[in-house]
């Protein structure tokens, strides 16, 4: 299908984008467009105005700042995939990146767009949650920071206010004792996951501490399996599987029961990755 008619404008600054969002309540921001344009083509969305933010300077880039990796909202997936900073300091993102769409999608899709769109089956929102990262947003009242645990509110719903623009995400840089794991099951490489799991932890003696298990494709938002986190920190993989406190709804890909089973399969795989010494 073809999109319904809309007007288009290029914002030259974040302030201008925020002002335009205030003037046009049903406008949408256009970043990489890899989800938005698909929804426009399918007429799942019909905004009156697209505000293209691709021309705004300073919204892309990856930098290590004060113990965190800051990734600008307009950073393309392909740039993150090739980034030495990402590979060294946020290995979870490096593990997840090849699973996000396909090359042609990663060349356009942006980190900020993926997080702001908050598809419950997408990889990056779950990675942000697993890493206990944060989102930086700018709005009419200025800048604010939102913790990942407080960011994902519902199906495609985030803590961003209507006039706010996501400008960057920040991810704690991995230390020597950091461990990460990532696995997903999809019908075809690069498709949205049937179920996926992004995880981080800290090596502590022979075990793990601060375990964060963020599942995707199992509910309206990426979800932490907190009981399994505690069980895994106590050292029991099978106990962690048994403690999985998820209740995935059926969807077009699989029934909830199948998803629940697959969540356990992924937990065993990811637990193995978390327990590997860091290379």
């Amino acid at each position, binding site marked *: *299908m*073809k*999109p*319904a*008619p*809309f*007007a*288009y*404008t290029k914002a030259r600054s974040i302030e201008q984008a925020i002002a*335009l969002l205030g003037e046009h309540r049903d406008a949408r921001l*256009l970043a990489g*467009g*890899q989800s938005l*344009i*698909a929804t*426009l*083509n*399918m007429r799942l969305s019909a905004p009156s*105005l*697209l505000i*293209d933010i*691709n021309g705004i300077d300073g919204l892309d880039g990856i930098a290590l700042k004060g113990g965190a990796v800051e990734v600008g909202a307009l950073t393309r997936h*392909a740039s993150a995939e090739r980034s030495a900073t990402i590979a060294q300091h946020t290995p979870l993102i490096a593990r997840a990146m*090849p699973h996000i*769409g*396909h*090359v*042609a*999608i990663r*060349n*356009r899709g942006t980190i900020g767009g993926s997080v702001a769109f908050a598809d419950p089956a997408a990889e990056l929102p779950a990675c942000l949650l697993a890493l206990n990262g944060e989102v930086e947003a700018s709005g009419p009242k200025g800048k604010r920071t939102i913790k990942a645990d407080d960011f994902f509110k519902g199906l495609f719903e985030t803590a961003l206010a209507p006039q706010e623009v996501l400008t960057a995400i920040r991810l704690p840089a991995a230390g020597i004792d950091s461990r990460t794991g990532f696995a997903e099951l999809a019908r*075809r*490489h*690069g*498709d949205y996951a049937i179920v996926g799991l992004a995880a981080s932890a800290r090596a502590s003696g022979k075990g793990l501490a601060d375990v964060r298990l963020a599942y995707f494709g199992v509910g309206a938002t990426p979800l932490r399996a907190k009981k399994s986190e505690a069980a895994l920190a106590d050292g029991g993989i099978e106990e962690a599987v048994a403690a999985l406190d998820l209740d995935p709804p059926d969807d077009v890909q699989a029934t909830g029961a199948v998803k629940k089973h697959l969540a356990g399969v992924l937990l065993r795989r990811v637990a193995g990755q978390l327990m590997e010494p860091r290379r």
Partner: protein
Amino acid sequence: MSEHALDISLTVNGEPVAERVEARRTLVDFLREDLSLTGSHIGCEHGVCGACTVRVDGEIVRGCLILAVQCDGAKVETIEGLSDSGELADLQAAFEQRNALQCGYCTPGMLAAAQDLLKGGVVPSRDEIRAHISGNYCRCTGYHAIVDAIEAVAQQRAGGKR
């Protein structure tokens, strides 16, 4: 300010193009409908099938997930340009020799994706070839012949350089 139709100028297959386009026009519709470059195909129109794969500023993209107005000032290359330049001639020959196409609908996008993988003279493994073309659906061949053709060209090109 915001408009429903905008003037754009860009380069398509090396030729300068200036047109007025509707904001909602996707790049692949612009190429097919306004420029009559019908080599880029339309399958799903939501980024899943890869039939509309074209190059923008040297990188492959989905022609259905980028608006023509976003390509103002860009350098766009379609299968017509890639074919005319001879850049893909060996891949095209290998596809033909190995029956790596039947109906041919996916072929323009498949060739663009394959050429992207082989840029820089790499010789990918069969698994890497499969991962790279995972975004391009083919409903005829079962992919084996496509993987064979891409692998053969990768080896030929590497051999030719020695």
